[in-house]
């Protein structure tokens, strides 16, 4: 009963990163999210969809542009972008909008991370459950800061410029 309740609760500050099954790279390599990103400091931002307007014109470019500032100010060794898209779509998106690959793309193709973290939003126009728009900083696998857009897809508290200004 308690574990079911835990599954239904959303990820919050103090929680461990979810042990979700995701894929990275082409050809895809299956990894456990918590294991892969559980050491040191990491920034993870979630996007509802590769190639969608907000994600493409604002959210991703912000982190690409502010990558050095983010790493310096927050001491993170990696900036990760997670989305409910497959690795091929993410690679095409990354090659076009982040050619120097400053951001590590993580494919949450079957929404395992989105479901386990509760950081999800239902977007029928895209076909169903997607990652909500959020940004978090984790240290040794524990969430230290978490900003999720109130409606799951707006462009405010999860943007790089917002984190740089607020934290």
């Amino acid at each position, binding site marked *: 009963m308690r574990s079911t309740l835990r599954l239904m609760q959303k990820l919050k500050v103090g929680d461990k990163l979810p042990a979700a099954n*995701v*894929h990275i790279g082409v*050809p*895809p390599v*299956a990894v456990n999210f918590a294991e892969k990103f559980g050491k040191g400091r990491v920034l993870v931002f979630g996007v509802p*969809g*590769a*190639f*969608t*307007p907000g994600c493409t014109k604002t959210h991703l470019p912000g982190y690409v542009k502010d990558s050095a500032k983010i790493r310096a100010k927050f001491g993170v060794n990696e900036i990760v972008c997670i989305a409910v*898209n*497959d*690795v*091929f*779509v993410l*690679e*095409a*998106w990354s090659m*076009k909008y982040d050619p120097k690959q400053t951001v590590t793309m993580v*494919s949450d*193709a*079957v929404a395992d991370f989105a479901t386990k973290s509760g950081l999800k939003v239902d977007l*029928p*126009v*895209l*076909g*169903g459950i997607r990652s909500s728009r959020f940004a978090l900083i984790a240290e040794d696998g524990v969430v230290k800061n978490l900003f999720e857009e109130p409606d799951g897809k707006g462009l405010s508290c999860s943007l790089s410029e917002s984190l740089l200004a607020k934290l």
Partner: protein
Amino acid sequence: MQKFFKPFSKSLFNVSKRYISVGETIPHVNLKLVEWKNGEYATTVLDSHSAFANQRVILIGFPGAFTPSCENVHLPEYIKRAAELKADGTDKIFAMSVNDPFVLGAFAKKLAAGDAITWIADGNGEFTKALDAGVDLSGPGLGFRSRRFTMIIENKKVVEFNDEKGPQMTDLSRVVSVLSQLGKLKKKK
């Protein structure tokens, strides 16, 4: 003769894996169509019966935008020979995948497809499931996808169905097979 008995055999033998058959009407589902209009890709919603009524169309099913075979071989050859395909009574070429409209628009742009193909963004897999054309590609991290197939559809009825029964690409789903089948249809008339 065979077409007459087909509906009866289905109910008698209760086949567990049902594929859409030649002669059947395509299912009635709302489709998200991504089309080239005025120099960009725009999305509209139209039901499948309206989209396929009173025309002969080709429908290509493919596993995923930006995946190697789809991007490098399968779709480009249909784009390249679109004029030939449409020459003798084929009105439109549709291509469908379990991808959202934004991903398909970006894919079409990358392939420089222009208006050669009308894309069906079956993001929630509804049309794929209704056609019984799905395959589980969770292994390579793709989830539920369309199989690779081609269909020739005349006024909503399936006239030819070339099903790879998986994501693989063989001569069965390639443009030369469809061109050959269209040639035979032309001779029948």
